[in-house]
């Protein structure tokens, strides 16, 4: 479908266009070809379409449960992914088991698509630990809170893949690094672009441009569309409709395959919108108007896939109802397990500072234990 026709369908395409395979009103576009001649499409079975829908609904429902838990005082903070489900599910489902993901603190949807128990990051947000999982077991690094730092970790890891000889074939390994529009201003992110370029690292930079870095709009971070920056580092950049799960999948899969085949990095700008607050501590009404939020609501990632499934008779109300019910049960189960999370033993704060410990720390731990024990039986 030509660009003009898509615009006619009430489609709000950013200047310069993006890769889109499913319009906001659920029209399937057969394929999309970018200015550099790359053509993207997907070839899903009905069942695969339905499972993508289930993923989207599930990650949104779990996210809503987390927001509620935070509001009820059960989480210290929560970074909601609302509105970014398609970017996360599309890219997350494009990953293969051997690939490695480096998330920010908002990639709950990617985590879910990696087959990881969604409770895993709740220790961090509830305040019982700082994350605490094994990146190599789950092929999913710990959440990184300092903006952009993980892009360098991802780059180093990708260099290691090359050094291990695990690129250059269809079964090679690849890395995906997640970050946001704000992070693109960080020096470390730009260093990761430089390094990945000169070492031809097997990495996909997946930027979820959700239009805001807390309160600051995209215009405060860049004068050019973010995907165009890739040219300056010598690798391809592509913008995709981040609210379109099909396009997000297609673009990410192609970029990952290029990486695993030894063709180096790609920058993907997933053009999307953060429908909620930056975190539960934020108040977006102070910096954006409701009409903008409403306009993006019309481009909702789930509504468009639902419309497509219904129109194509791939799924009906029974299926949609069952997906909602199942997601609701998962959310309830998640809630119960979050509430059952034990508080950490205070003395455990001394654990895992060093692999080889430290005599000074051993002494401090002992003094702490003695101090705590001194209150036993004293009524404190």
């Amino acid at each position, binding site marked *: 479908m030509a660009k003009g026709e898509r615009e006619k369908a009430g489609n709000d395409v950013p200047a310069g266009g993006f890769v889109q395979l499913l319009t906001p009103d659920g029209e399937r576009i057969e394929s999309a070809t970018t200015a550099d001649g790359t053509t993207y499409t997907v070839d899903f079975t009905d069942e695969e379409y339905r499972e993508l829908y289930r993923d989207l609904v599930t990650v949104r429902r779990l996210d809503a449960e987390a927001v509620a838990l935070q509001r009820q005082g059960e989480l210290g903070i929560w970074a909601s992914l609302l509105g970014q489900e398609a970017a996360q599910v599309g890219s997350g489902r494009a990953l293969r088991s051997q690939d490695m993901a*480096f998330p920010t603190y908002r990639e709950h949807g990617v985590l879910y698509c990696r087959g990881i128990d969604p409770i895993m990051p709740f220790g961090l947000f509830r305040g019982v*630990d*700082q*994350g*605490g*999982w*094994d*990146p*190599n*077991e789950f092929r999913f*690094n*710990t959440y*990184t809170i*300092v903006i952009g*730092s993980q*892009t*360098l*970790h*991802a*780059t*180093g*890891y*990708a*260099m*290691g*893949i090359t*050094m*291990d000889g695990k690129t250059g074939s269809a079964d090679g390994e690849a890395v995906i690094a997640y970050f946001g529009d704000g992070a693109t201003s960080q*020096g*470390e992110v730009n*260093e*990761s672009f*430089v*390094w990945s370029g*000169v070492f031809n690292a097997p990495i996909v930079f997946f930027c979820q441009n959700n239009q805001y870095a807390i309160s600051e709009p995209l215009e405060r971070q860049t004068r050019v569309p973010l995907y165009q920056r890739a040219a300056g580092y010598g690798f391809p950049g592509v913008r995709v409709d981040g609210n379109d799960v099909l396009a997000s999948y297609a673009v990410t899969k192609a970029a990952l395959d290029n990486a695993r085949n030894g063709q180096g990095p790609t920058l993907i700008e997933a053009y999307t919108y953060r429908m909620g607050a930056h975190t539960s501590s934020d108040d977006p009404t102070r910096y954006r108007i409701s009409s903008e939020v409403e306009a993006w609501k019309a481009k909702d990632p789930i509504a468009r896939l639902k419309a497509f499934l219904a129109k194509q008779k791939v799924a009906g109300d029974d299926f949609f109802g069952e997906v909602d019910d199942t997601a609701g049960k998962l959310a309830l189960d998640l809630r119960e397990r979050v509430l059952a999370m034990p508080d950490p033993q205070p003395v455990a704060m001394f*654990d*895992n*500072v*060093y*692999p*080889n410990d*430290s*005599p*000074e*720390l051993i002494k401090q731990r002992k003094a702490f234990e003695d101090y705590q024990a001194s209150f036993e039986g004293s009524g404190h």
Partner: protein
Amino acid sequence: MAETINLGKALNHGLRRSLENDPKVVIMGEDVGKLGGVFRITDGLQKDFGENRVIDTPLAEAGIIGTAVGLAIRGYRPVCEIQFDGFVFPAYNQIVSQVAKMHYRSKGNVRLPIVIRIPFGGGIGAVEHHSESPEAYFSHTPGLKVVTCSNPADAYAMIQQAIASDDPIVFFEPKRRYWEKGEVDLDLPLDGAYPLHAARTARPGNDATLLAYGPMVKVALDAAAAAAEDGRDLEVIDLRSLSPIDYPVIFDSVKRTGRAIVVHEAPGNLGLGSEIAARITEECFYSLEAPVLRVTGYDIPYPAARAEEEYLPDLDRVLDAVDRSFGW
């Protein structure tokens, strides 16, 4: 096979042996490959181990440390060279927020066996940012260990021990001592070497304790030799490990001598000497004949090269402090 070599060459031999012993060890930094580093510490290593083991990196210190984190998660043991002390700060974020905390964050699941080599200290007539002593910043950071060597034999053993350790280690090299020679046993087995995080008595004595590390150990030893001519028997302790500090060795000495003087190039305000003085006061209070004194750099940015001789602690300033201690 004992050889007389300088400290820089001892580091070079130690790095070579680490590369030979473990295929996961990689060296990375600016100009470490063909050039062999601006101080030639990595001289010849890229030629013998290849560009994948000795990596000339882009000119970006945060990138060096940040990619080392990723390589370590992948199972490598990166040895990063920061070209000069004053150039470490672009990487400070990665070192303090990532290298130091990832083991803790991951509940011990991630180990980052990264060594960050930093030539430090003054005395070489350099321009700004090339003569600093930033060890306190890193010693203050839980999750990092910090060591420094003062002589070729320690340089050879300690760099290998640091690389073999699973802890992230900032390894400070006393750049003005790179050319000081000493005897090194190149066949020394690592498990027979003096422990990495142990202080060592560099000169035994009974009348006062001089505590020094890195480039200042030589100054302290010279001062002790001069004091001996005046009949004062000074003990010199080479701290070697700055985090953790090997306090039992210090306390044993000070309880015997009753006097302690800490010497370092870094500014005195909140420097390592401050912490050491506090700890000695807590542990050796009834043994002290005088307050713990410090001989340090002044609380100013490192001065221009033609003034640095007056800034750096030297034999006379150390002896002056010894006099003050005895005069208490």
